[in-house]
């Protein structure tokens, strides 16, 4: 809201935002739709994702690039899972973190990378934002709309789950 209004201030950033919108909205919708199975909820997820993107517009260098695509996909999935969680109010937070996001084919890729892709969506997003995009815990907390301490806990849980998965797969 107020934070959002403060975010996009220069014509370059405005242009960047419009390019992002035109380029990725359909992809983001498809991702959200796959998780939420409902058009209206998926559109809400896309809108919330764009609000988050607007807030973090300064962090995007090239609107059309693999890095940016990966980033908007992660944010769209994250917002879709948020909405999914909202619809599952009877579940505890610990359980809702288990929501699986996008289905990804793990054939032919490395063992550890395969385990990352098998993680529940929320955990996978944390690992990718932290280790692929290189964001700090503080930055991720802002993107996910959670407190820094909650993001720290999520990061720890994601790594613990990854370790467990690796053990199950006999990697460690």
């Amino acid at each position: 809201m107020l934070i959002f209004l403060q975010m996009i201030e220069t014509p370059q950033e405005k242009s960047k935002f419009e390019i992002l919108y035109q380029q990725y909205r359909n992809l983001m919708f498809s991702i959200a739709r796959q998780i939420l199975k409902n058009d209206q909820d998926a559109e809400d997820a896309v809108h919330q994702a764009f609000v988050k993107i607007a807030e973090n517009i300064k962090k995007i260098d090239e609107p059309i690039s693999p890095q940016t695509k990966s980033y908007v996909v992660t944010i769209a999935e994250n917002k879709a899972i948020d909405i999914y969680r909202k619809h599952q109010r009877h579940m505890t937070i610990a359980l809702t973190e288990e929501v699986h996001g996008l289905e990804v084919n793990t054939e032919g890729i490395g063992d550890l990378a395969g385990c990352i892709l098998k993680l529940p969506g929320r955990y996978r997003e944390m690992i990718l934002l932290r280790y692929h995009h290189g964001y700090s815990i503080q930055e991720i907390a802002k993107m996910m709309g959670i407190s820094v301490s909650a993001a720290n806990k999520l990061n720890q849980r994601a790594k613990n789950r990854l370790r467990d998965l690796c053990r199950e797969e006999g990697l460690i």
Partner: protein
Amino acid sequence: MITEDMLQAAAHEADKALQDSLFDLAKSEHIFSKRFERKIRKLIRRARHPVATVVFRRAVCVCQIVILIFGVWLLADAEARTAFLNWTRRQYESFYEYRANDSSNKTDYSLSWLPDGYTLSYTRELSGNTVQVYEKEDGLRIYFSYSTEADSSSLFVESDYVLCQTVELGDVKADFYRAKTENVSNVLIWTSPDGSTLFSISAFLEQDQLVQIAKNIKVQE
């Protein structure tokens, strides 16, 4: 043992696999609803008027006496617990803090009565805290917020520019913060009868109008 370097390398590989798997999804075209297009147009319109945004932001800085900071506040003081069941109010030198003591279930609310001309502009949710903004054509706004997921949340009210008094909302007592100057909005803060939800309304409206809005809050189905 998984090292940070291993994680980084694997994350790059996982991301590439994820991107490759999106190839089919990227081709699909969705016709977005008018409601969605309207919201996005608003988003882009704000982006197109950075000057207006800055002016508006400054105006908000002046008029906004409620600072909605829902953050981590590592503080606990039994003496501070007052009339509220799950929320306590604590007065500091220059602000009031409302802090949750316990977590509770999330329920969504909306305003069923509004002064003439106000309509819902947008809603924002942050970790169990919801802010709804109602706006008039002349730019005046009503900020309605509620927090039901109380884990480590605080709401702060700057106390330098307001006078606090207690008003009644039916069976519930509320704190009415009357602005000392005309460029600062009035604020009403109260909790639900069971103490689980903290509500606040901030607007350039008189006490009776804020009370009427508060009395007409409804649970969203």
